[in-house]
Structure formats: C-alpha cells, structure tokens
C-alpha cells in the first residue's frame, strides 16, 4: 500500500481504498487493445465488401468500365464509321448477325488469308459495327448519369447546407422555392427545356459543340430540376446534426460558420449524400434514355443506350438482338447501381434502411 493513500474517515460511506490491490503486469496486459482501431469509412467499406450483392455490383460495374475504356482501343471500327470495301461502302455488311462477316469481307479473308476482327454484336442498318456503338452508347449514358449526378450533388449540397445552417427566414424562403420546383411535373418541364435549349444552343461553338447540344441541355435540365431532392435531404440532416453538443462547443470557442459546416456538419451528412448520389446515377440514365426515346437525347451519330434501343425498335421483327444488347446493358448498369446504392446505405447508415 502506498503511503499517499488518503486517510478514510471512519464515518464515510466511501469505499475503503485499502481493500484494493494494484493489478499485476499480467492482468494489465488483458486490457491491451489487440485489434487495430478503424475509422468510420474503413469500417463501412468492410461491411460493404461483406455484402455479396454489393460486391457483385462492383464487379459488374468494374467490368463494364474496363470494356468501355479498352474496347475502342482493341476493336478496329469506329462508332460512326460505315464498313468500307475497296474504298466504297460495303453494301453487303448491312444488318449482319452477331459474329458473321459480310460477303465482301469473306471474299477478302479468303483472298488474303487474314482474319478480320469479328462483329461481336453484328452491324446496324448503315453497316456500322454494332458492338462499338453499344460501347460508345454505354460511355455516353454513364457519362450523362455521372455528370448529371455531380451537378445535382454540388447544387443540392450547397443549397441544402446554406438553407439548413442559416435557418429562420432564409430557410423558409429557400424551402418554399424547393417545394415549388419539387412539385413541377418534371418530365413535362424536361421535354420543354430540352427542346428550347437544343434549339438555342445549336450553332454555338467551342466546348458545347464538342459535347453536343443535347448532352449539354440534359446536364442543364438536370442541374435545374433534380437538385431539390438532394437539397431537401441535406437540409434535413443538417437541421438534426446542428443541434448536437459538439456544434455548440465549436460555436462557443468562436469557430467560424464556414468551418463548422465544413468540419463538423458536412462529414456527418456524408452518408446521406453518398447514397443519394449513387441512386441518382441510374435515374439520370433512365431520364436520358427516355429523352432519347422521344428524340431529344444525344445527337446522331453519337449513340446512347436509349437511342440505340429506340432505333432498334424499327427492325424489331427481323433483328430482335439489336434491342436486346443496349436494353440489357441499361438493365445491368441500373441494377448494379441500385444494388450498390442499397449496399452503401446499409453499410454507411443502417438507420436509413427502409
């Protein structure tokens, strides 16, 4: 017993410290934390990779990404290139079935004894290689989905965090605006806006012309309409987070508002933001394919999955596989992204599970 142990008052109800013994070295060791400490992010990633459906979707998405990145380097055809034979259009190469060659190509191969690159998905009615068109269509659709979600993310998070953090009258006015935009019939407005933007942007030069006016108008339309859902979610999350004691503590030591939002509030809203963005991509892909269907999607000859599927409907009876390839790709991408979004939600925020 050490000498500096305080003396116990005999009348006190306090536990007599003299009855305690110091722990031995062995006992102390039992308290050692053996496992490494993990961060929130690492922990949720571990959970995500334990979810077979999420892992499956990640594999599918990575495979699709690899194909759309590397296929154009390997396949010797262009997406807008009509197959040529001796410098003229190969008329026998129209609407070939998958893995077949046109008459002219067969002749050429027999003469030269070389093997031409197969048309994996056949060719379309303008004798263009269909596989490479589907690959480019997937590129376009994924790009539209990704960038549209990015726009939604930026605008929604900014708007939602300002509204939620400021509160009061500012919040009231900002949320009324959101309410109005939220109840607009989105498809009607999208169709109207894309017609207007398409006509207005036509003839412009530079980066807009390069991307295609329809693509830009899809982005603008998304930026204008779809951020409201994100803004609402972020605002709701911020409203609940900002009541926490640590925010009060930060405020009391004079932290600037922008720092509080950045360091304390936004990280706590991150899971909501990630999940919503992941689920936004498939909805953007759907919208793009819908617009392509009514002829307002990306401009020809640039394909998108929606426009490919739509064009294939005309030859449906003779070439049903031409609809199947882009349609299956859309289904696969949307399915994988939806499952990944669900997996992310379970991993990042089990409370949100619905």
């Amino acid at each position, binding site marked *: 017993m050490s000498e500096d142990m305080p003396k116990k008052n005999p009348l006190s109800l306090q536990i007599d410290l003299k009855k305690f013994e110091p722990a031995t070295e062995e006992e102390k060791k039992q308290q050692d934390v053996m496992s490494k400490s993990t961060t929130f992010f690492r922990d949720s990633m571990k959970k995500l990779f334990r979810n077979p459906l999420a892992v499956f979707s990640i594999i599918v998405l990575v495979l699709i990404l690899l194909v759309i990145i590397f296929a154009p380097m390997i396949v010797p055809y262009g997406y807008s290139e009509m197959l040529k034979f001796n410098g003229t259009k190969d008329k026998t190469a129209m609407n070939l079935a998958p893995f077949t060659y046109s008459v002219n190509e067969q002749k050429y191969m027999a003469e030269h004894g070389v093997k031409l690159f197969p048309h994996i998905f056949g060719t379309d009615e303008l004798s263009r290689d269909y596989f490479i068109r589907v690959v480019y269509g997937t590129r376009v659709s994924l790009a539209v989905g990704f960038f549209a979600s990015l726009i939604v993310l930026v605008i929604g998070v900014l708007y939602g965090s300002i509204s939620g953090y400021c509160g009061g009258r500012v919040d009231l006015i900002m949320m*009324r605006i959101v*309410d*109005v935009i939220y*109840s*607009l*019939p*989105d*498809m*009607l*407005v999208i*169709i*109207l*806006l894309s*017609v*207007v933007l398409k*006509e*207005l942007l036509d003839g412009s030069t530079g980066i807009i012309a390069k991307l295609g006016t329809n693509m830009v108008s899809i982005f603008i339309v998304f930026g204008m309409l779809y951020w409201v859902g994100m803004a609402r979610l972020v605002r709701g999350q911020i409203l609940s987070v900002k009541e926490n004691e640590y925010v009060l503590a930060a405020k009391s030591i004079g932290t600037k508002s922008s720092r509080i939002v950045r360091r304390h509030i936004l990280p706590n809203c991150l899971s909501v933001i990630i999940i919503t963005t992941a689920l936004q991509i*498939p909805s953007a892909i*759907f919208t793009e*394919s*819908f617009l392509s*269907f*009514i002829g307002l999607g990306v401009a020809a000859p640039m394909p998108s999955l*929606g426009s490919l*599927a*739509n064009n294939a*409907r005309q030859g*449906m*009876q003779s070439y*049903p596989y031409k*609809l199947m390839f882009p*349609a299956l790709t*859309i*289904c*696969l991408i*949307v*399915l994988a992204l*939806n*499952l990944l979004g669900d997996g992310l939600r379970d991993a990042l925020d089990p409370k949100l*599970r*619905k």
Partner: protein
Amino acid sequence: MARYVCKRVLLAIVTVFIITLITFFTMNAIPGGPFNSEKASSPQVRAALEKRYNLDKPLPEQYILYMGGLFQGDMGISTKTGRDIRQTITESFKVSAKIGGLAALLATIVGVIMGSIAALRRNTVIDRLIVFFSTLSTAVPSFVLATLLLYFFCIRLDWISVWDTENQNIILPVIALALYPTAYITRLTKTSMLDVLNQDYIRTARAKGVARPKVIFKHALRNALIPVITYVGPMLAYILTGSMVVESIFTIGGLGSKFVTGITNRDYPMIMGTTIFLAVLMVTMNLISDIVYKIVDPRITFD
C-alpha cells in the same frame, strides 16, 4: 390542420401559376412559330393567322389574354388542327385515365399483396423470389418493356391483337405501365410491414390471443399501408409521364402523345393546355396524398 391545408393549397396554386409562366415563356423561346413551317403561305395569310391566334401581340399581353380565357374555361383552339383544345384533352384523357388508373390500381393491389407476403414469409424462398423480381423490374426502362411485350404477345405468340380503333385491348399497356410502381410498392410494403410487425402492440395483440389473420389485417396491414399512401402522388406522376412512351409504342392516342406532337408542331395552345391540365392533376394528387397521409397518421405533427 386547417392551417396546414390552407398552406398546401396556396402552395399548389402558386406552383400551377409558375408552371403556366414557365411553359408559356419557354414555349415561345423555342425558335420557330406555329405557322413558320408552311412555306407556301403568303405573308398576308400568315399575318391574318397570327392575328387570329393573338400571336401578333407582345408576349405579356398574349399571356394575360390566355390566362383570362383559361379562367373562363376557354383553352383556345389548336393552331395545327383548328379543333377545340378542351375537347381534344377530354377525349385523349379518357384513354390515358383508363390505362393509367388501371395500372395504378393493379400496381397497388399486387404490390401490397406481394410486399405483405414477402414480409410475413421473411427469408423463405417466396420472399427471395419476390425481392428478386421487384429489384429486377425497377431496372427495366418502360419503353423496353413495352416493346418486348408487344413483340412477344402481339407478334410472336399472336395472343393479343395490336391496338387499333376496333380492338382496344388494354392489358399490355397497363402491364407495361404498372411494372415499376408495382415493384416499388412491393418494396415499400415489405419494409413498412416488417417494421410494424416488430412493434410492441403486435406482440400484445398476439399475447392476448387475437387470431393471426386479425392481427395481420387489422393491426399490422392498416399501419403498414401508411407509407404506401405517400407514394400515390409520385406514382401518378410516373404513370402520367411513362404513359407518353407506352402510348406511343402501342400507338394509343393519349394525352402524353398530344403533348409531344404539340411541341414538335409548335402548337402553342396545345402545349399550354396539356401542360396545365397535367400539372393541375399532378399537383392536386400530391396535395391529396399529403393531406390524407397526415389524417391517417396522427403521429405526424403539422408545421
């Protein structure tokens, strides 16, 4: 409650008003007018036509004139066909409403039944199958589904004849429209049913010896359906916009196709008429489903 309803109705009116503004001015921002395509017509004829449709006046005045007419129930005449817009909308809405209404009904009934079964038979083969199909069907775009249905049932199997004026078989368009909402309602019902089944009052009811069907139908299902009510508004929006595509695939002349052809023809009164009609319909349905939601769930506070 009354305050909440007033606020929501006011907001709905403002929304519809804003929609008319947006539609009117974006529509006029599209280059080209209704009479530009007819190259043969002389400038005099065009001027007369434009005067006839008030197109010679400045835009704000046109807008006020249109809104004034609208309040008296006059939606104008189509610049393309010369027919009365209100009559055209009523006729095409009958078709759209029949298909859309049936699709909504089908989606709700099938979705609630499947969702409840999945929740009650949790982690069995039936549950897995239902979850599998509902996940799968949210990933199929409606135009792909509609095309496939048309291809297999009308052309390959020849079970159902293709839509024409005499033979109006609405099964396929209804299925094509109902699939996505069905899947969504299934998921919604399943999760809310599971949530409800874990509540204490269900255990109490069971402990009291209430028969299982009564527990499910009276205690569980009634509460589990509350979130489904909130989906009615968005479902209607989905079905109305989805019907544009499905209608054009099955060549049914519904409201959606009138809107799209209205835009391509720059048929201003038609665009305004269809947009306002659809907007009012959607805003009203959203409003009703929000208010009903608050009535059936007293836990929700009014702000």
